């Protein structure tokens, strides 16, 4: 226990911005979100924290790696009032990765239909946006919007964690504006 505490104190808190500066060439998304802006958006749109359900509809698993990175101490998504939930019934927003495969299309629709309003959908990555390199024929049905309605897209292969966060924000802002 002592070793664990000592390590925690030694590392301290990973500050989002200073860590980014440490490794200079990290590109900042134009829609870079600050903690406070994001929290304000969530309050305005939902009046509470945001719950997200993730469905991998056929990705190469690259997008999952970057979505997982959102939970690391640098992006600290939970700390900003966004958390991933296990059930679509608890979710406000659905993050979908991959070209939608034939074998996953029904599971994706089922998951989406199980969500309460506003049931926002964000298509993540080039494949989710256009089908990507896998195309839109044969076993790959392609873009997410061919299967369920999409509120926001984020391109990239895979998109950076900060870009995924920006897309989540833009989907939530859509609700606030409606």
């Amino acid at each position, binding site marked *: 226990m002592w*070793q*664990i505490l000592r*390590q*925690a104190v030694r*590392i301290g808190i*990973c500050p989002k911005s200073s*860590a980014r500066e*440490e*490794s*200079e*060439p*990290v590109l900042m998304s134009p829609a870079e979100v600050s903690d406070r802006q994001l929290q304000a958006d969530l309050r305005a749109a939902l009046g509470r924290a945001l719950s997200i359900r*993730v*469905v*991998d*509809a*056929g*990705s*190469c*698993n*690259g*997008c*999952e*790696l*970057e*979505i*997982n*990175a959102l*939970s*690391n*101490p*640098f992006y600290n998504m939970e700390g900003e009032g966004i958390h*991933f939930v*296990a*059930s679509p019934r608890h979710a406000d927003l659905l993050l979908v990765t*991959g*070209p939608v*495969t*034939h*074998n*996953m299309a*029904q*599971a994706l629709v*089922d*998951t989406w239909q199980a969500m309460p309003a506003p049931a926002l959908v964000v298509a993540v990555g080039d494949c989710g946006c256009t089908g*990507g*390199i*896998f*195309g839109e024929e*044969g*076993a*790959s*049905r392609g873009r997410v919007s061919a299967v369920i309605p999409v509120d926001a897209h984020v391109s990239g*292969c*895979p998109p*950076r964690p900060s870009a995924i966060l920006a897309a989540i924000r833009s989907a939530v802002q859509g609700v606030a504006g409606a």
Partner: protein
Amino acid sequence: MEPSTGDSRPMQGGAPTHDRTSASPPALLIRQAFPSARPMGGELATYHLTATQAQWSMAAAAISSDAGNRPESPSRLIALWGASDADGRPLASAVYGLADGLLWVDLPLDPQSRQYPDLSRAFFFAGRMQRAIFDLGGLRAIGADDVRPWLVHARDADARSPATDYPFVRVSGAGVHEIAVGPVHAGIIEPGHFRFSVSGEKVLRLEARLGYKHKGIDARYTQLDPILAGRLAGRVSGDSTVAHAWAYCMALESAAGIELPPRAAWLRALMLERERVANHLGDLGALANDAGLAFGLAHFSRLRELWLRESDALYAHRLMMDQVIPGGVLVDLDASMVPRIGQACRSMAEEVQRLRAIYDEHPGLQDRFRGTGTISTALARQLGMTGLAGRASGLGRDLRHDHPGQPWSALSVHLCLSSQGDVAARVAIRFDELLESLRLIEAIASRLPPGTHHRALRLPQGHHCGAGAVEGWRGEVLVGLEIEVKGDRSRIVRCHSHDPSWQNWPALEHAIIGNIVPDFPLINKSFNLSYAGHDL
């Protein structure tokens, strides 16, 4: 094209470094059966044979009996797939690993009956590959027991979710019930269905139903230009993008008969080891988290993020996608970055050692890790396990160690091995390999040979086959490729990417037997197999 009785097409590749005097018994046998077969130089010497049905079965029997008779035998089936040749005639293809290289056997099939001799009795995990071959091309293994569909769930595109009517093997008896999980899981993970048969908390049987991510990658290859298809190879399994892209490029370079510039091989190796480090960092955190120590996830995910940002600084891509390209690598390494890489490796090693000491001394964590999800060495051999999980169960195979082409021969890669076979062993192997990879990265960066990092690839006229095999972080990744070049038009006749997850998914089903249901996420994570790489 008539099935010939011994036509062999040796393939070319990089620098020949292997010892040809120590041929394994099956290699000798095959050499007798195919007298014209000669291995030629290559990072991995490869024999390419077109076989008759009898020769197909003979090669399988010789290799599987050698694997069964000699515990130290490296003979193994690596990949099995179906395809069509340039004239559209069906082919079954198998690639075996032998002591002195690879053996690629093509079996032309009768276009009417579309049948080939079964390999699943000789090689346990071949059963699922054969089911996949039938799903994708209608080729049937004669005499195979299990003929259930595998990758294609429903022929009708609008059919309902098919997991409900898949004929799982049922376990019956007093108090036995089933738990169905997936395809959509609770966490941020890939889709797949798991059917547990349990009695109380104890798992009696697990059967996986995969294929949800099937995108038709083999078919997609044939629609793409051979040079551009490297991008697709890098997306077979995103967490192994360097390994898959390298294997594809190795196959293409072998088909084109070009030798890779030494510096390019070293730069690829640098990225392959960076990829191994990134994945092991992620897994070590997730494993502690699944055992209830969230501290481990916080600290390892921090280290992984720092590592990805370093990759970003070097390659402008956090996962290094599209950096391995046919003919070399996309960007050279600037000499000014070398000290920074060395520094990053040393400080990372220090951080990892500190966390390892905490893991080792944490009684709760060790209690969950030790004796959980055990696969004995004997069982691992029977199952044909590979890669990291195989090494954790005493199977000492690693392409970087066993067939050291460039740059591995100059680096003497340490083989990390354990015979415990439990979650603790798979954790320990990750720690050992992580530290070894950090050593390798520093050594590679400081000893990079001079010269060009990329040589434009000119594809020669005609038909050419090539194979590539790379020890990715999960195990051996293999690509088998045939290209056709006519005038200024080139196309992929057939291409197959094999991920080592094929071998190890069935092993996971054995590892869980007798364990309790709550340990499944932990055992599953300790294997961390690719769904995408398997489902293709």
